[in-house]
Each structure stands twice: as structure tokens, then as C-alpha cells.
């Protein structure tokens, strides 16, 4: 089952909006379950199990632990548990989107959405720069360690401004240089060409996309029904 990135964005949008409008726990479980199913079907069993355990734990806290506490403490625990749990279905779909979509697929889909070209370029650079930034960060940390400066949270708390300086200056300087280099490379390869560009990746909707979208529309309808009827 291969879904179009646009479908994934769409179901993510539906889920994140409806989960906070929803009042029924049953509906919330169905939303979470659908997300888990998608994750499992795409072969990410470890993540599926992790999210399932986390979700169930937070659910049990709300149902069984919160009433045991006095009201004030219970309220705080409730807020925390429920808030995070409501984000979980979105986290699931988010990690489903990230784990199953290559950057080039995602960009191909974004291009097809006919956003302004500048935004597409900026977004492409953003996504491509991710791994580079990781490398930069680990070299900066090494360099700091060599000079006996700790980049750990403790060091950050002790000397916040200094640590910020030590991390930011090399990171931003190298980012500036890299952005100049990327610009030159991109212009050489004709990024300023005005015509519509073609793409190696083939992005198209399939029957699966239709099914998943229909499923989510049904879920939203179910949620509205449950809200009306006050289902638990």
C-alpha cells in the first residue's frame, strides 16, 4: 500500500483538527487505532508498539489514576495526560508520513500543489539541509569538547549566553557559507529556469488514497455523530 504524500498530509490535517474538537474517548481510540494500523501496515512495528503502549498508558491514567487524586492534583495530571494523548494520533501520522515518504517524493507532491516557486525552493533546501545540520552540530560539539567546553544541558544552564555563543556562531557562520555554496550550485544547474520542471519521482493518487480518504471522512462523520449523541 503506497499512499500519495498529499493524502498523508490531508489525513494528518483531518486528524489534528478533529481530535481537539472531539469529546468522545471511543472516537479518539478509533482515530489512534487507524493511525496505528497505517503505521503497522507500512512495516514500522516497533513504532506501532511504542505508540500503542504510550497511548494506552495515558488512557489508563485518565480513567483510573486521576479519580484517585485530590481534585487539584488530579486536574493537573489530567490536563497533562490528556493533552499529550490528544497529540499522539498526530504524532503517529506524522511519523508515518516521515518514515514512509522520501524527501524527493514529498517535494514532488509539494510541487504538484502549485505553491509559489520560491516557497518550494526554500522548503526543498530546508528538508535537504536537515542531515547537514546534524553533521555540523556533531562537529561543533566535538570542537567544543576538544576545548573543554561542555555542550550538555548542564553547561547550558550554568552559562547560557556563553554556550549559545559557542554553538550559534560556528553553526550560523557555516550555514551562511553553505547557503552561498548551494546557491551557486543551484544556479549552475538552472534553478532559475522559468519553465515548469519535470520530476524523477512519479506522484499520483491511487485506489488506496481514495479508500483512506473515504475512511477518514467517515471517521469525521462518526465524530460529529458521537459529539451530538454524547458517546463516552
Amino acid at each position, binding site marked *: 500500500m503506497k499512499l500519495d504524500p498529499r493524502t498523508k498530509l490531508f489525513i494528518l490535517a483531518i486528524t*489534528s483538527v478533529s481530535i481537539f474538537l472531539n469529546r468522545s474517548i471511543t472516537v479518539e481510540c478509533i482515530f489512534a487505532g487507524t493511525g496505528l494500523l497505517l503505521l503497522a501496515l507500512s512495516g514500522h512495528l516497533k513504532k506501532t508498539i511504542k505508540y500503542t503502549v504510550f497511548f494506552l498508558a495515558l488512557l489508563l491514567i485518565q480513567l483510573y489514576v486521576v479519580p484517585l487524586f485530590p481534585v487539584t492534583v488530579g486536574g493537573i495530571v489530567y490536563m497533562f495526560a490528556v493533552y499529550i494523548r490528544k497529540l499522539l494520533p498526530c504524532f503517529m501520522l506524522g511519523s508515518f508520513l516521515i518514515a514512509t515518504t522520501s524527501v524527493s517524493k514529498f517535494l514532488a507532491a509539494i510541487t504538484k500543489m502549485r505553491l509559489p516557486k520560491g516557497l518550494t525552493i526554500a522548503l526543498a533546501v*530546508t528538508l535537504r539541509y536537515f542531515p547537514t545540520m546534524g553533521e555540523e552540530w556533531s562537529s561543533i560539539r566535538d570542537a567544543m569538547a576538544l576545548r573543554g567546553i561542555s555542550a550538555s544541558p548542564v553547561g547550558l544552564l550554568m552559562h547560557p549566553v556563553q554556550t549559545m555563543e559557542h554553538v550559534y556562531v560556528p553553526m550560523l557562520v557555516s550555514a551562511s557559507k553553505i547557503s552561498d555554496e548551494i546557491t551557486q550550485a543551484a544556479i549552475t544547474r538552472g534553478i532559475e529556469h522559468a519553465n515548469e520542471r519535470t520530476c524523477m519521482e512519479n506522484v499520483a493518487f491511487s485506489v488506496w488514497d481514495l479508500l483512506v480518504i473515504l475512511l477518514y471522512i467517515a471517521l469525521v462523520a462518526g465524530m460529529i455523530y458521537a459529539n451530538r449523541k454524547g458517546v463516552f
Partner: protein
Amino acid sequence: MNKANVNKLETRDFISVGIFSLIYAVVAFVVGGIAQMTPVTFPFMPMIVALFTGTVFMLYVARIPKKGALTILGVIAAILLFVTGMFWMMSVFFLIFGIIADFICASGDFRSFRKNLTAYCVMALAPMGAYIPMAVMPEQFDAFMKNKGDFASFEGVIHSIGGTWWILPAMVIGTVVCAIIGGLIGRKLLKKHFEKAGIV
């Protein structure tokens, strides 16, 4: 740099926008993520983030002083937040505040530090979107407890937890103060390092 008279974004600007937006978003993510992990620091997330993103913001404005750049920063931050499954109101806030910050900066021609700082204060408020559900949740908690039938009514207590009227303004003021500090640190670093190195 030497293109100060050209006020339209070009390819090179878009590429800078992409890279610096990522740095901005990652800093906000990492710092915000750490801040949100414990219930005690949870409400302080926007303030802590505001302290740290100041430098990136100031460099961003200094490097790409053109209209539209901050809007794209908002859009990219919104997309990254949305795709990772964060609460969608935060994305909406980033979109709106990005556009507002863009207008404020543009009105000062991107050179007025005061205007830039004001814009940063606006931008720094975007993570507040994460707390919108908190306004709705006391009610749901109330309903949940009533469903359980353990308590009759304790709206007063609930409101003392989440619905107190002063929490929101207090958070906004705290965030603005932190944003000003963050912005000042940013300007200091900018003067000390980046201007000397010829990056701005």
C-alpha cells in the same frame, strides 16, 4: 549586501531562507521539546524558546532584509510543525505572526533595530498556540469527572488550575520580555561576530 536596492526575493534569498528557517525551527523544536517534557517547565516553553531563537532571528533579518522572507519563515515553521504532528494551532499562529512580523520589519526597512525587535516579539508569541487547548480542557475535565459521578461540582477549583484569566496575559508578557532579552543577545552576538566576519 550589494543588492540592498533590489527588494524582491531572488533564488539566493530563497536558499538562505530555507537554511535559516530550518535552524530557527530546529532551535525552537529542541529547546521547546526539552521545556515541554516536565509539567513544571511546561507553561514556560514560549519564554524559553524566545530566549534562544533571538540570535537566529536577528541574523535572519540582517541577512535577508526583504519583504516576504519572514512570511516564508512562518510558512516553513508551520509546515515542519504540522508534519511532525504538533498541535495545528501552533502552525496557524506561525503563519499569521510570520506575516505580521514581516510587515513590522518592512515598515522599518529591516534596518531599524526597534522595529525588528518588535517583530521578533510578535514571532516569539507563535508557540503560544500550543496552549489554546488548555483553555478548553478544564471544561472537558469537569465533564469527565461529572460523568464519573464522583464529584458534584468544582468549577472553582478547575478554574484555579487552567482557566484563570491572568495566566494568558502573564505568559504573553513573560514571552515578550524573554523575546526582548533574546533579541538583545542576538544583536550583541551579531555585532561581535557576524558583522566582523562579513556575513551580514
